[in-house]
């Protein structure tokens, strides 16, 4: 069994022959090269987006029910927090290679590892959000005759939404950063071109910059979604 590191076609990212001016040869920051070669980053960028979205979505699918369950059954908090805490601590590069013998090379390994990283953040924020629901709101819901399920979906979760969305934002930006290491698992992403020509300043700038742009864009999208989903916080701020 042999694991090969980043499988970039030889000379693909390093090929600078078309515009081999002094700037490119000197590994400088070359606006012309960047404009001409931006299309090389499209596929890695899309891979990166897919890794982040899939991992955070999987993380939410696991962490959300766990947090709701732990909210009702308090004894679950300690074990779940400890296990997700350990997962969060394992360095992602190590996690990729520990998973390789089990899940093999490719996006699956990366998504499993990245999902594991989001769990602690999401679990903690969903739980903190639910815990912070005012007792008055809960009592009012009960007084109106809501069942436990109705209380959860109509009162507690909406009020916990700001905390849940804050967790989602932290998890997403963190995952964008970690997904830059996913090329170790053979899953591509922006880390692949970044590593392939790491002495070339233009390349490092574009690949690294795209990561930051992606993190910021996803952050703003989630923030926008939060504003739309919690109109009452906005009207309170305005008044």
């Amino acid at each position, binding site marked *: 069994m042999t694991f090969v590191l980043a499988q970039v076609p030889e000379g693909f990212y390093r090929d600078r022959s078309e515009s081999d001016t002094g700037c490119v040869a000197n590994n400088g920051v070359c606006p012309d090269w960047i404009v001409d070669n931006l299309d090389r980053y499209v596929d890695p960028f899309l891979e990166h987006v897919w890794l982040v979205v899939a991992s955070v979505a999987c993380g939410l699918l696991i962490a959300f029910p766990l947090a709701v369950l732990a909210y009702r059954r308090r004894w679950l908090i300690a074990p779940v927090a400890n296990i997700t805490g350990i997962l969060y601590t394992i360095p*992602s590069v*190590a996690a990729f*290679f520990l998973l390789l013998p089990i899940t093999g090379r490719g996006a699956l390994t990366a998504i499993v590892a990245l999902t594991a990283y989001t769990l602690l953040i999401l679990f903690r924020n969903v739980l903190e959000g639910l*815990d912070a629901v005012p007792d008055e709101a809960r009592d009012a819901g009960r007084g109106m005759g809501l069942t436990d399920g109705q209380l959860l979906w109509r009162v507690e979760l909406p009020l916990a939404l700001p905390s849940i969305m804050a967790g989602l934002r*932290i998890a997403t930006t*963190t995952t964008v950063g970690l997904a830059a290491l996913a090329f*170790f698992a053979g899953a591509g992403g922006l*880390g692949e071109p970044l*590593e392939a020509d790491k*002495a070339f300043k233009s390349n490092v700038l574009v690949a690294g910059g795209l990561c930051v742009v992606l993190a910021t864009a996803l952050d703003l999208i989630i923030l926008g979604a939060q504003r739309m989903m919690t109109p009452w916080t906005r009207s309170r701020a305005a008044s």
Partner: protein
Amino acid sequence: MDPFEGGVMSGAIAALGVFGDGIDFLVRERQGRGGGEVGGLQQTAELLWGHIKLSIAAMVVACAVALPVGLVLGHTGRGGFLAVSVANIGRAVPSIALIFVFFAWFGAGFVNVMLALALLAIPPILTNTYVGMREVERDIVDAGRGMGMSATKLVTSVELPLALPLIMAGLRVSAVNVVATATIAPLAGYATTLGDPIINAGVYGDEGRVGAAMLVAAVAIATELLFAAAQRAATPEGLKLSRGTQRRRLTVINRRVSTTP
């Protein structure tokens, strides 16, 4: 005599398959793919020490920068936006990008990688120090001031002890992150870390890769536990008492880093 030769131990290691081979690599020397001797306790210790040395150096530099700035900003209450934005920006910049920025602009070597790691470690320490200082109850600070404490005395005797748990939480986040990121230091030309067998599997073989990955994971978890214990030890008794009942439920989840709302 080789304690791993035959017997129960090697039987247990063999049962673990790929992971057993990894452990075996860490304790027993073998012929590498490049021809030289790789693996074994001596090389493992060498890589481990390089890893820890790099991490400690980065943390020392990060603390030297972030703690004073955080304390001053937190004490005066100025620059809150800066202190919190630093954390958000820091999270968005991938660690590998930061390392390669230093590599592309300043070249390879211990100091450059160490500075990149230090830069990575600054945001959580700075933000948590700032927030920790700000979250000290104003009544307590006013009481100190009313007792005629000087600004220095106020910081060292009142604000700092009360902010310490959160400051330690920041150090913990940073330290674990630095230990994790030191793994990719060989990509930027500093080869003596546990990342070397992971990245250069062509030399060390797949057992080396899995063995080093396991050791890195163990070092990171040990760092986490060490700082968690330090954080508990740094919490003033009074703070433990007053928060005891309310906090007990969530003590396991106290890895807080603040973010803008």
